[in-house]
């Protein structure tokens, strides 16, 4: 077996603003804990599992890059060959790629978002990409049903139950080619499709139940060309990908011959369909119709098209992106819950993970789908349900923690009640604090007896 000629770029982001107050200078997005492991580790281990061990991790901001780099070299020193590259903040995903594009040498580049938590093997995407000789291959997965089990909070609103329309995606009938992609939220009233593409395939499947997982395989030359020529492109999702999809029948990128060299021979039936050869044949083939000039043309057209492919993950696969606070809570819950195989831990008989060094007081219960990391102490009569508790937390008596994430070194005094919240590291909750659907930023002190609901608490 020859090695796959793939280079991997992990876009780990920086201090993402929509995740504040969870992320901070000290804790970039890539290091946010999911089941007490940095979220980036899920991607890295996934890649490792597909034998993709040469990685470039791109981090926004020098400080963040140092933090991430430090963590990686500690955790993966002997397992992966990782280069951490720092890019200025706010350059966008395309900008980040542009700054490292000159280092890329392999035929194809796999670009993974660092906040992806999934068990879809990247090798499968790479294989699809190769099989089709595509210019870009995108991983699509079923849209997660947002905000399940947050009982009571949105129970009254019927409308909130509607599944989120992440993307509106157009596929060909065989579901191999990507014909259209739009972000659900950005589509205002009308879905606008390019007619030429529809004409080429004849039938387009428009799906609203798929999500772009931000895992792409690009043909390197094409990617580099675009990055060079379109210097205003900032985002892969918003600029590069739509550009490639749009121009797939009138490609400029493949004109330089680099791409079309190998794609000539192994065309699938669908591709032929894309070549509009099939016209005038369907009702009843007729000897009267002369399609010679068409086939002549189709050859020319052939050179001007490139393929945008998709890999649609099986519905049973888990796939989520940590791009919002809601997603953070959801993923944490899922990784110790329904998608527990991702966490890499072995669960106890009670379906939870309690580190041997954790101490539990009398009459304290830790329910299933919970996690209690090393060195944490719980007082008496505590109750923990469907929550993750980090390392070295000190939790007093009569504390209730439900559906929450508690990071490291958190002090929770007696009588607190925490529901649906995220408590960052080094936070102190004084006595009888009641939190519901709150986020508490690192180092914050919540004074005793205070009650908060749906608030974001952070140090100024």
């Amino acid at each position: 077996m020859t090695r796959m000629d793939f280079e991997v770029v992990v876009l780990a982001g920086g201090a993402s603003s929509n995740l504040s107050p969870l992320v901070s200078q000290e804790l970039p997005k890539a290091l946010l804990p999911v089941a007490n492991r940095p979220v980036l580790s899920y991607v890295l281990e996934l890649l490792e599992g597909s034998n993709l061990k040469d990685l470039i991790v791109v981090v926004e901001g020098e400080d963040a890059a140092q933090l991430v780099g430090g963590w990686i070299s500690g955790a993966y020193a002997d397992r992966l060959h990782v280069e951490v590259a720092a890019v200025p903040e706010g350059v966008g995903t395309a900008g980040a790629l542009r700054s490292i594009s000159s280092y890329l040498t392999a035929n194809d580049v796999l670009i993974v978002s660092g906040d992806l938590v999934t068990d879809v093997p990247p090798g499968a995407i790479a294989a699809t990409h190769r099989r089709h000789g595509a210019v870009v291959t995108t991983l699509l997965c079923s849209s997660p049903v947002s905000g399940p089990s947050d009982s009571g909070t949105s129970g009254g609103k019927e409308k909130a139950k509607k599944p989120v329309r992440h993307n509106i995606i157009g596929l060909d009938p065989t579901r191999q080619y990507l014909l259209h992609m739009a972000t659900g939220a950005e589509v205002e009233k009308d879905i606008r499709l390019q007619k030429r593409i529809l004409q080429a395939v004849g039938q387009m499947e428009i799906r609203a139940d798929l999500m772009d997982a931000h895992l792409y395989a690009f043909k390197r030359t094409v990617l580099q060309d675009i990055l060079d020529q379109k210097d205003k492109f900032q985002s892969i999702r918003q600029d590069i990908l739509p550009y490639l999809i749009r121009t797939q029948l009138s490609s400029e990128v493949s004109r330089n011959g680099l791409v079309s060299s190998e794609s000539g021979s192994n065309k699938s039936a669908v591709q032929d369909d894309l070549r509009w050869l099939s016209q005038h044949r369907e009702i009843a083939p007729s000897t009267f119709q002369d399609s010679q000039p068409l086939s002549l043309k189709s050859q020319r057209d052939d050179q001007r098209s490139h393929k945008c492919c998709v890999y649609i993950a099986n519905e049973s696969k888990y796939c989520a992106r940590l791009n919002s606070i809601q997603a953070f809570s959801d993923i944490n819950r899922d990784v110790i819950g329904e998608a527990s195989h991702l966490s890499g831990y072995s669960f106890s008989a009670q379906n939870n993970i309690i580190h041997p060094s954790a101490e539990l007081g009398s009459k304290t219960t830790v329910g299933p789908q919970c996690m209690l990391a090393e060195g944490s102490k719980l007082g008496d009569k505590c109750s923990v349900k469907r929550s993750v508790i980090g390392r070295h937390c000190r939790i007093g008596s009569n504390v209730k923690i439900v559906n929450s994430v508690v990071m490291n070194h958190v002090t929770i005094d007696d009588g607190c009640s925490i529901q649906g919240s995220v408590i960052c590291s080094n936070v102190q909750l004084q006595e009888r604090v009641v939190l519901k659907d709150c986020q508490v930023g690192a180092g914050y002190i919540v004074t005793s007896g205070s009650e908060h609901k749906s608030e974001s608490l952070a140090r100024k």
Partner: protein
Amino acid sequence: MAQKKGQRGATSVAADDSEVVARIPLQAVLLADSFNLKFRPITLERPKVLLPLVNVPMIEYTLAWLDSVGVEEVFVFCCSHSQQVKDYLKESEWMKPSSRFSITTVESHDAISAGDALRVIYEKSVIRGDFVLISGDTISNMNLTQALQEHKERRKKDPLAVMTMIIKHSKPSNLTHQTRLGTDELLMAIDPQTKELMFYEDKVNPSIISIDKELLANNTWVYLHNNKQDCYIDICSPEVLSLFMDNFDYQHLRRHFVKGLLVDDMKDHLIDSLTSSDVRYKLHKICAFYIELGLLAVLIQSHLALPVFMYMIMGYKIFTHEIHSSYAARIDNFRSYGTISKDILQRWAYPLVPNFQYFGISSKVKLDRQGVYSAPDVVQSRSARIGATTLIGSGTTIGNHTGISNSVVGRGCTIGNNVCIDGCYIWDNVIIEDGCRLNHAIVCDGVHLSAGVVLESGVILSFKVEVGRLITIPAYSKVSLRPQPSVQDSDEELEYADASSAVIESPSITSMVSNRNAESSPDYSAHEVGISGVGYIWSTNEGEHEEEWRHSIAPIPEAKLTELSHAYLEEPDVPYLDVNDFLVSGEMKPDSESISFDDGDGGDYGDSADFDKEVEATFHRALTGVNQETVILEINSLRLSCNKSHADCAGALFFSMMELGLEAPRSSNNWLLVIKLDMYGMTMTTMGLTVIGELYQNIAKEINKWKDLLKHYLKSVDEEASIYVVSFRFYEPYIYQLEMCICYIQFAIEVILKFEEICLETATELAPLFSIILSYLYEKDILSEDAILSWASEKEGADESDKIFVKQSESFITILHMKLIGPQNWLKEASEEEDEDNGDEASMMRGSFCAGHTHVGCTFLSRFAAGSSSPDMDATFAVDYGLDGRGGLGLCSGDDGLAARFVP
């Protein structure tokens, strides 16, 4: 509004059918008129359905198919040349007793569209169950059983599934954007699971397809098809006819009816999210009940009918059935005529093939190798070559060295020596003299081509045209003995010409073939037109000529294809990319695209501001004396075209009325004062400050004047629920009373909310008047007490800022409440509340009640003061309070007396 009775025809049959059998026989409506001009000039003389297709009139194919699928009753709708159609049918096998089904002709001469035709059929009330709707120019061999079964099952589950369309795979060319039948490419969105048709568009914008996002609101999956062909065979439920009846503007079966239904369907999804499905279900039930009662006809008389129908359209669904192996196609234009002829010769439509004894008039034709059919009595020279896929009709003689290929030659033709015929359709009794060359032409009955005539591709020679020697008829020419009507009424596509229609003064009126290039002089030179030519060459409009090749019988010329393919290759990125390259990111946002989609169908009023203006304009027209019903009609049509709900109408209308009321005082100098003081408008009418009074007076006057109009809309807001209430009061007081209440309250609340919104956002000066107007509306029976109370209770949980109006109307609400639960109870409640509530107010209310003064508007007055003490009305606070006490005094004596006492 073409709802006129047909003069004659099926009335007697309708009477015969009065005994209703348990099993409804399968019926079919056959439209023996295509309602377009595409087959002109031929159709000037003979109806399209009687034109021979492979030597058999088209209608025979359609009837044969209807027969084969087990249709038992066929209603043939004739319009143009109806006598010819009727005569033909009378002579045909189908009318003989041995026929397996009965044919009834329905005739109307006013019909100018399929919509009119269906309305005529409806008026005959002959359709009792599901029926097949087909045009007389459709050729098919499909088996309808499965589609019919599917349709019936769907109907059982969902009574709103009114139509099943038959579709077939057919990929249009990317270059010409048309199918091989010559029809324009079609865009359909179909739900892959249910096969429901979600979107239908046959006029597709050249580069960008725009589809409403709502399409995906309820489905996550939609198939967008560009490779399907509409077979124009529909299985319809009887409701389809009444839908045409209700929407008298529906003309075209697809363009109006299908799209109309789909658009309303979309709106239905929207409304879905607003109201509970429970209520909707009940409405559907009521609706169905109505239909059963047969009350629709009664309702048409009243102005209530319209909104009822408007509602009824909503939610109807169209489904599709795709056929795969069988054949179905409609002859839409000359190109499809050619294509389908060839398909028949190549036996794709088996058993509808020339040598099968299916049709009564089919002669014995035998099939030779290479798909050559010839009648036994053909006289053919030994040296004549008959090429592949050709049919020669009986009694035809073919001369020496003549070559015929890919053509259909009719009966009794005489073809001379050295003639070359390729891809032509030559009908009966045509004489072609020696040396003619015919290429992809249609030559009708009785045409005479003198020696040496050349017909270039795409030529149409209508009946009995004669062409002189050595003439070349240029490509795509249409020649007819009938002169070309000068004005083509493009709106109303009529197949038949009016005998009196104007005629182009053709220079060669002396029965000569004129040259299309108008340069030809009246003295027809022999080398141009020939000595014995008879006929006019029809000129084509400039624009049309460009597109002539599309629908012509001739294959698309290669040069055209090359040209198109160049265009195709060049076209792409120009509009799209250049714009977006300047955008740094976010180019997927739709508004960054330069091309705006306009479907060209009617005005697209788009945003609501425009709509409001339009309604206002309409309303102002009403002021100038237009009758109220007309206004309702106008606004309704406006509503449909702008895709608005009834609530929007009511809102806009209300707004206009308020504006009107405000106009007079606004124009005067001290209208600022008005705003401050208009809350006393009611009482101050007779005071010195007449201006103030005017405001209220005006508004009250307007409301009074237009209350019916307003009532109409308020009552019919969203779902028209209250219309049912109103109508049921007339017809069926007991049934569904419960549903009525539920619906009514639900929607009336919507109205008040709308009203509130108006006061807050659009006409702030109205805010102080809110409660007066509310009470007035109540008084005039536009809003019911239930509705107002439910509104108040709904608002209870709202923010303080939202409650301004509730507070303002509090006393009014109290009175209503009082009315509802009885005075004793209320008094008790009120005294309990007194401490926590505004004491003054409560006691005053009680006072007014005890005084037996129940005039709502008047009692109301006292309320104003208290209501205005909310923070945003500080300015008038002091004045208010002063008034408050006196207001209480005045309560007993009615408006006028009260007002009189207030003179400062």
